[in-house]
């Protein structure tokens, strides 16, 4: 073999290890799984939205409007009696509907009298994730088509209306029903925009903090081993719990400082969250009370402790700084998965399996908490805090247990077949 071939073979053998490929394979699987779980966006865009109509008008323009609605959507509720609005909303909720459109009795008459007419849209919003608003954007597009067709009708029939009315014969009056609240004057798109800062910022900040603080703990353990300081530390008159707690708390402080730096960096962005355009979130009741902030802080705190305890446990397996880099991968993965899911989908709109996955990953909870608190879903937040606290306690107990065993200093003992054994010392 040539010298080059010899070196190539050696390098390839060194690089082609499970630690090189497993992370990439797992990330590929993760994205594939998430893609399938979220469903095919294109299909969802082309799917007819499930809607209901109450048409109280008997004029020609309302007839055109309802015809378009029937052509472009799956109408599951039809009525001409405005008093049946509640019934229509209930029926739509049962049938996974998106919106109930109400055409008032003077719809055609107003347009023909040069007054824009209202289309009342009662939205049934299921989730505030980026992908949750796809069906509502299909309905918004439908309203655009209605407007355009009414314009064509007015122009082609030489109706005696002015140009402004001919071009914009209707306007929308939105009311959104979301998580038990009636939000007047806003569409699901508006709410998604309002909450988008949380949908993206908080999961990203949490993900960064968990990864950075977590890798600090893992590296700290790895460096203790690599620099040969661990043995000395373990023979000093300090109990194991103090060593574990000291490392976790120090990293938690660093993690929180990092979080504050991130939050300051995004402060302007957060400022824009307070008032989004013409919509005041205070009027909508979409703000966190002091007790909500307390719960959010508690959720962040227990999650940070849980993450660091988990990392401490991983760190005990690190042989050196290089292996510590590999060990940060599970933490990164467990921070990335909930980040992506919470950014794109609401917990309530997820399939059961993804709900279980998201709840099971302890790092998800502070990412989900702000939105849940805004809509008074205290059960999710408090159960999350309890779950993460239990997870953290178990991780701390395991880490202390490892510190009390030989495992921290010695390698694993693997039995080979036929009674032979392989003893590995780190």
């Amino acid at each position, binding site marked *: 073999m040539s010298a080059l071939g010899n070196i190539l073979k050696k390098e390839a053998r060194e690089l082609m290890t499970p630690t090189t490929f497993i992370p990439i394979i797992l990330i590929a699987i993760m994205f594939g799984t998430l893609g399938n779980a979220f469903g095919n966006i294109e299909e969802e865009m082309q799917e007819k939205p499930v809607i209901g109509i109450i048409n109280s008008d008997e004029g020609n323009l309302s007839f055109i409007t309802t015809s378009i609605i029937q052509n472009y959507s799956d109408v599951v509720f039809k009525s001409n009696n405005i008093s049946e609005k509640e019934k229509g909303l209930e029926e739509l909720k049962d049938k996974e509907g998106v919106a109930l459109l109400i055409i008032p009795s003077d719809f055609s008459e107003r347009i023909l009298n040069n007054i824009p007419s209202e289309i009342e849209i009662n939205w049934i919003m299921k989730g505030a994730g980026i992908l949750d608003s796809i069906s509502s954007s299909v309905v918004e597009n439908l309203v655009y088509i209605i407007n355009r067709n009414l314009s064509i009708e007015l122009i082609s029939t030489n109706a005696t209306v002015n140009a402004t009315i001919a071009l914009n014969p209707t306007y929308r009056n939105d009311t959104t029903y979301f998580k038990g609240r009636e939000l007047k004057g806003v569409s699901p798109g508006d709410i998604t925009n309002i909450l988008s800062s949380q949908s993206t910022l908080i999961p990203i900040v949490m993900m960064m903090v968990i990864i950075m603080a977590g890798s600090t703990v893992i590296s700290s353990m790895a460096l203790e081993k690599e*620099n*040969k*300081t661990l*043995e*000395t530390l*373990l*023979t*000093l*008159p*300090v*109990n194991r719990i103090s060593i574990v707690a000291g490392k976790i708390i120090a990293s938690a402080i660093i993690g929180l400082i990092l979080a504050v730096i991130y939050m300051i960096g995004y402060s302007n962005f957060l400022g824009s969250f307070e008032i989004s355009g013409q919509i005041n979130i205070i009027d909508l009741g979409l703000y966190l009370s002091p007790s909500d902030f307390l719960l959010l802080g508690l959720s962040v705190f227990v999650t940070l402790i849980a993450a660091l305890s988990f990392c401490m446990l991983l760190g005990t397996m690190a042989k050196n700084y290089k292996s510590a880099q590999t060990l940060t991968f599970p933490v990164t993965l467990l921070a990335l998965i909930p980040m992506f899911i919470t950014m794109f989908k609401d917990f309530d709109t997820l399939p059961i399996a993804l709900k279980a996955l998201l709840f099971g990953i302890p790092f998800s909870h502070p990412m989900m908490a702000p939105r849940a608190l805004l809509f008074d879903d205290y059960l999710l937040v408090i159960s999350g805090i309890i779950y993460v606290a239990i997870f953290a306690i178990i991780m701390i107990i395991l880490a202390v247990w490892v510190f009390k*065993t*030989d495992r921290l*200093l*010695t390698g694993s*003992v693997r*039995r080979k077949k036929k009674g032979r*054994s392989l*003893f590995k*010392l780190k």
Partner: protein
Amino acid sequence: MAVVDVNNLVKKYGPIEAVNGISFSINRGEIFGLIGPNGAGKTTTLRVLSTLLKITSGSIKIMEFDLQKEPDEVRKIISYLPEDAGAYKNLSGRKYLEFIANFFQQKNPQQMVSRGIEIANLGERIDDKVDTYSKGMMRKLLVGRAIMTEPKLAILDEPTSGLDVNNAQEIRRLVKSTARAGTTVLLSSHNMLEVEFMCDRIALISNGKIVEEGTPSNLMQKYNAKNIEEVFTQVVK
């Protein structure tokens, strides 16, 4: 009074028996050497005695404390210097000694630190980062760390390993003066001439078993040998 009393100590790593039923005791102020080739079980014995590894069977008493039942008490009276120990690289020598001293003297660690600085004898370099130290300087700092706490038992694994003649001699002198001051010393070495020079008593260990024990002079007389190296060769033959 025996400071260390090891009785039928067995330490297994899974199916591997690293230490196989050894017993010995060390008196106050004595320098006791465990000598033997690589893999004989010296370091494992020292790690067990310094509470790092669990005992598989047997018992160890250090002063009045049972090592298995009261490891926290044992850690207060021992000091362990591993063979390839390091220090925190981002700290200066002085800060490292302060860090260690704080575990022993939380109220007034400065006296202990001053003693450590004196033993390490690094001059102005004590305020430099550990990262910049040579191997000899690092070892002197670590010996200073191990002895400054005035432990009842100092456990030193290959204390002069990898050092040049001058540094090795300085550390040997330090160990001897520490023992004279009342600290009991248990050390391991595969340098048999060093052990012969330093130790009051020695135990020869091979394949996890103590194969001979006594004062260097008695052993040399018993085996009609010129030095401990010859004794060892005859014993393990």
